[in-house]
């Protein structure tokens, strides 16, 4: 299960794609992350992460409709693959394990 590791930003992107369920493309993903996490995301950083995740097989993409504001360019919708789901699960599980292992006294501080 070594290959299921996700980076912090990768995890955020995959989760956001999941949240947007069916409406996840460049603009909405960026908006969603910015809204929920209150941080600025550059198109460059987002796109490169999306492509990387797609290459790794966590995401799949499909061209969708276009809009007049897009200059005739199609939207590229992303969805989480089964493998992607596994990766998020894995990350979450590992994170939980870490939380569980944490002695209560540490958090009391």
């Amino acid at each position, binding site marked *: 299960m070594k290959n299921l590791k996700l980076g912090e930003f990768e995890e955020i992107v995959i989760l956001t794609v999941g949240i947007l369920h069916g409406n996840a*493309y*460049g603009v909405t993903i960026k908006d969603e992350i910015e809204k929920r996490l209150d941080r600025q995301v550059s*198109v460059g*950083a987002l*796109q490169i992460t999306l492509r990387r995740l797609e290459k790794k097989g966590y995401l799949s993409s499909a061209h969708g409709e276009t809009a007049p504001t*897009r*200059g005739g*360019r199609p939207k590229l919708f992303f969805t989480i693959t089964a493998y992607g789901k596994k990766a998020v699960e894995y990350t979450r599980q590992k994170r939980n394990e870490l939380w569980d292992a944490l002695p209560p006294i540490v958090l009391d501080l």
Partner: protein
Amino acid sequence: MNQVKPPKFPLKLLKSFCKPEYHSDIEGDLLEFYARRVKKIGPQKARWLLLKDVLLLFRPGMIRSFKPLQFLNHLTMLKHYIKLSFRGFRRHQSTFFINLLGLSTGLACTFLIYLWVADELSIDKFHENDARLYQVMGNYQQADGINTWNGTSAKLAEALEEEIPEIELAVGATDPDWQMTFNLSVEEGKFKSVGKFVDEDYFKLFSYDLLLGDEDQLFSGKTSIVISENLALNLFQTTENILGETVEWQLQQAKLVATITGVFKAPPYNSTDQFDLVLPFELYQQVYGNDWQNPNSVTYVLLEKGVDAVSVNDKLENILQSKTSDPGPNLFLKPYSENYLFGKYENGVQAGGRVEYVRLFSLIALFILGIACINFMNLSTAKSSRRMKEVGVKKTVGAGRSSLITQYLSESVLMALLSLGLGIAFVLFLLPSFNDITGKEINLQFGPKLILVGLGLAIFTGLAAGSYPALYLSGFQPAMVLKGKLKGSMGEIWIRKGLVVFQFSLSIILIVGVMVLFKQMEFIQNKNLGYDKDNIVLFQNEGKVAEDLETFLAEVKNIPGVLNASSVTNDLFSPPGIGDFQFEGRRIEQADFGRFAVNYDFIETLGLELKEGRGFSRDFAETNEIVLNESAVKVMGISGPIGKKAKLWGTDMTIVGVVQDFHFRSLHENVGPMFFHLSSYSNNIVVRINAGREKETLASLDQYYKQFNPGYVFDYKFLDEDYQALYLSEKRVAILSRYFAGVAIIISCLGLFGLATFTAERRRKEIGIRKILGSSVFLIIKMLSSEFTKMVVLAIFLALPISYLLASKWLSGFAYHITLQWWIFAGAGIIALILTWLTIGHQTLKTARINPVRFLRDE
């Protein structure tokens, strides 16, 4: 919704680097953001943010890979282009050969001129210390203005080295222009060699390699001599173990046995200073004096590193003032290697010199290359109808304009490279005669520099020549050309016509030039100088001959085939000035008054005609006699000159005869006044031999000379050689102009040929219709050729006045010249017309004889 157009640049930028498979949706996202931002924060900021986004997208995962894919493609395309070019060459062989000939002629010319210019610029630059090496020059104030030359006092060098700290070394020497010829004798025999006197540090200043000997000990004694490797080989057949050998040298009356203290490598060919032996300067000063007032030497200076020559000039001034009360020259330093190219001074100011030729020839090279390129363009565009369809099909299939441009450029560069090959073959072939004409020893050494220059030249030519056709052809509208329509603007045609007129004017000027030069040189050859200049032999008066001249001359006259013999002090075509010459109490100070110091029988040996009185004769014991020429009688205003007295150097001289005027200077000058006087000392022996028996007579002369003057070489020359040497530069110009005329004619004809082809192709349909309507072949030929004839006639009318002016200007440099006759100009015009008709004949005939159906059916 209010649509604001997004800026183009960021999107173009994105497209240029983004992976194509990612590009379209990312651009969509960006545009969506942009549209939103415009509403929210205004277009100004939105634009900046868009650019920022694009720039932030510039990261490794996004950037497409440029090289591997593109490179492969380019290579394949290049192969394809080259293949197409070769097919084209094979298919249109005549065009190919015409282009090849035109470009290679142009390149060869340019290359030759480049070699010449590079050689000129390299002269005297080989010295290691070149940047710090200076020659002391002097501005001498004289009656007719400031005279600038290199003469300085022999004492100067030593004073400079001692008194000016900025000067590292200073060396005195004799002027290399004197070309002092020494007679050398060793056990093995006698030799003549050119040499000079130099100071000790000479070999430290100049980079002439010392092969043997100690640099510091070369001139430790007055009896030293340093010789060149070549001379050593001549004298001893070896260069080994010759230090310490003795050589006896003689210069005029000076004679000394010297010991060899060093051997140097003879100066390279690109040195202006050529010498085979050097002697101690101290000796020269001893014999010829070293007065501060006497500028009988030259001085070379090596400055300390980082010293400005201008700052030293002021100090030079002071040095001279502290040494002598005489108003001496204004001394200044001149970089040694500039002497060659910048040798001319006018009234103390630098006024060019040979560098003018360097500039002129560089200009000519550019000019020739330019015309050759334009011709190539002309021919290529003229043949454009052949390629119309190719361009149309390619564009339809999807070739971009840039790839078409690349194709045509690579074709023309290929053409230029092929021409370069042929051009270099031309250069190799022509180089010996080129060296002959220009008096150089240029070798074609294929080093990296030459290859770089050659390739650079070819590629530049290819790009320049191909640029216009490439732009012109690639600009065709595919739909139009596939329909068979080709537009040609009037402007283009005018440019072509103008070019042809220009080229032909140039050719006609050169044709006239060649003819005028030829006639004038012929005139010079055949000009009666007032005596028969053929069959007169000259040789030096030296050794035993000089000791017993009278006996020698008397016996030489007895040799069969010898008609007469005498001797003379001066050079026959450049007599010295008259010196102190007075007639009836007034001094004659005419610059062109010539004085000949001669021996008995001189007038008879030359064969001058006596108008009055007699020549010098041994029968009269009197030696204070002079003979005038007719001009002198006129200039001096004497009537009945015989028996009158004139004063030469204070001595009364009786005028005993008057000779008819004869040419004693070059034909550039009028025959001036002159006189002969008797002189006991002579430099040259003059012998007139029988025409038709030259070989036998010279052989017996040689035999007799060796017997009379053992150890000396019978080194003779004909007077005619001296005469020819007077016109050396004219001869060079004559030969060079012949070559240039040839090149100009070839190039002009190519230009005309291009235009003829172009016109023929454009007018095919017109001619087809004319023929259908009943025009005959003859009429069409007349129609087509009249167009070109008109252009050439225009060129003739432009060129003839110019060539007339140029020719008369050149001829006015000669006091005796041919008259410019009408037939020279008529001849040049007719030659131009005949060339025109020959050039266009083939095309015109071909066009006139076409079957009209062939060109009219596809409309």
